């Protein structure tokens, strides 16, 4: 029982990390970035490449090394996110929403199959796996590694929350989310803030990618597709565009899946998750913490 809760929270923290980028981008420019899950995949592969370049991993150094790789990867995926926005999304900002969505689908395809062309279609085994001794906490088995990864996720999320609620940058983001045109009139460089939002969101997805690689031990070029869907589900459960809500949604989805797998069996896990998504959109489309918005005409 406690094991189920822990597993759920653990997977949930991954979902939450990926969902945050989704949610931020959606909150600020109302774009569903379908390619977001693929940035997570890109992160996993970047981490893979960096670890490969570093060479062998000495046993005791695994954790600090992993953290260093995490930072490098975040920078790379962050820049990739900025580039995507610049090339594929910015020119279409005033175009019909349909065009933007289709571009996002194309971007996702280009990333997935670009990676396939670059790294091959077969799954890769991650060069670093933190085995670690397992601890008994409240009747559940946990490895040190799991705790560290959850810890990193919590730190990243807390940092993001501070950034959005306490800094000038965060205030600019919130202003643009409310009204981009007025924000521009007030002297906010809208393009720059949107770029930085993409950077932060993509960097978080990249971090989650590396962590998933180290945790599951296997990566492949399609790994982002499903996680993208799940992350969106998490964002919707909590309230898309709402940062604490998204974190909550991620954890909740993780828990739901963990228990759903237990009750229904692993093969129905994804069906269960998307069922929850459809249910939520039908009953409460604004999510648990989202506010009811009226569409401006």
């Amino acid at each position, binding site marked *: 029982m406690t094991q189920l809760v822990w597993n759920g929270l653990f997977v949930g923290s991954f979902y939450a990390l990926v969902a945050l980028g989704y949610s931020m981008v959606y909150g600020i420019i*109302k*774009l*569903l970035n379908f390619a977001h899950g693929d940035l997570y995949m890109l992160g996993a592969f970047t981490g893979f490449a960096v670890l490969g370049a570093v060479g062998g991993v000495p046993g005791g150094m695994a954790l600090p090394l992993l953290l260093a790789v995490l930072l490098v990867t975040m920078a790379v995926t962050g820049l990739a996110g900025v580039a995507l926005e610049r*090339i*594929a999304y910015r*020119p*279409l900002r005033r*175009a*019909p*929403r*349909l*065009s*933007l*969505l*289709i*571009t996002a*689908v*194309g*971007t*996702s*395809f*280009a*990333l*997935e*199959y*670009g990676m*396939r*062309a670059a790294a091959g279609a077969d799954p890769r085994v991650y060069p670093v796996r933190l085995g670690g001794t397992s601890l008994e906490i409240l009747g559940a088995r946990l490895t040190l590694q799991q705790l560290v990864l959850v810890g990193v996720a919590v730190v990243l999320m807390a940092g993001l929350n501070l950034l959005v609620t306490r800094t000038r940058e965060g205030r600019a983001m919130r202003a643009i989310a409310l009204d981009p045109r007025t924000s521009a009139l007030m002297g906010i460089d809208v393009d720059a803030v949107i770029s930085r939002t993409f950077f932060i969101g993509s960097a978080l997805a990249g971090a989650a990618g590396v962590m998933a690689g180290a945790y599951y031990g296997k990566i492949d070029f399609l790994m982002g*597709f*499903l996680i993208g*869907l799940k992350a*969106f*589900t998490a964002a*919707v459960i909590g309230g898309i565009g709402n940062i604490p809500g998204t974190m909550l949604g991620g954890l909740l989805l993780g828990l739901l899946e963990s228990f759903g797998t237990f009750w229904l069996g692993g*093969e*129905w896990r*994804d*069906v269960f998750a*998307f*069922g929850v*998504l*459809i249910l939520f*959109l*039908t009953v409460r*489309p604004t999510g648990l913490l989202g506010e009811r918005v009226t*569409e401006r*005409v």
Partner: protein
Amino acid sequence: MTTAKVRRLGTDRPPSLASRLMGNRWAGLAGLLVAILAPFVDATPYALSVMTSAAIAVMLAAGLNIVVGYCGLLDLGYVAFFAVGAYTSGVLATRFQLPLLATVPAVIVVTVVAGIVIGAPTLRLRSDYLAIVTLGFGEIIRITANNLEVTGGPSGIYGIPPLVEHPAAFYYVTVAVVSLAVLGSARLGRSRLGRAWRFVREDEDAAEAMGVHTYRVKLAAYIAGAVWGGLAGVLFAAQLSAVSPGSFTFLASALVLMAVVLGGMGSVSGVVVGAVVISILPEILRDLADYRFLLFGVLLIAVMLLRPQGLWPARSREVP
């Protein structure tokens, strides 16, 4: 707005020779003629199977065009209906020894229900939510087919009876059905309902204000698309005599979407050409197999950036 600016939108510039040919009613007949004559050029089993697949792709694209092209609802799980049709037909045919033709009414009923189940709760929402819900729906259908006993699990259903015995005869049956479907979607597009669809696509709020019941109209588009997809599924089951979950991935949905976008959303002749290109090009470019989908992705972005109306845009009938 200057005239030049307006013209760049593509809908009301003087028609070029190409678009006049595409818009001409003879274009459809010419296309049909090409489809009829094609087996006389090359009737190897391989060529026939490629041509039959292309015809089925045309039907799928015509169906998705109703949803995305006419009504502006992005459906990213369109093959779910294709799967529902193929599986319904396949299960009924193999379990109850029915001829495929007899399964068609059941397929229509089941796809309509599927369209309502997924459309009814989500069509009230923002259109981008619909996109992702349909994506999830596509996955749900595929995973369900993969896990259920009645659908044969991962290996699927096999031994589905053919519609007609000879491959060439089946090709002509397919062409006939697909032509009717394409014609039907074109006529729907010009009907009163079709005008309502375009109105909803262009400006939902204005449509609502002018008395269009937008929810009902969108649901109608959705159901029509579902039926087209389901019937294409029957053809697909008949062609392969087997269905398995592997044929209904997101990739398949994306390829149909690609055909619609490339051809020009809302333009029937454009979409037909788009579907033929999408299904035949990979056969020609076999060597590029690894780069094929990368190319498709880049092409999607490029079309949206450079030519959002598609390669053969629909010409508006309202503006002379």
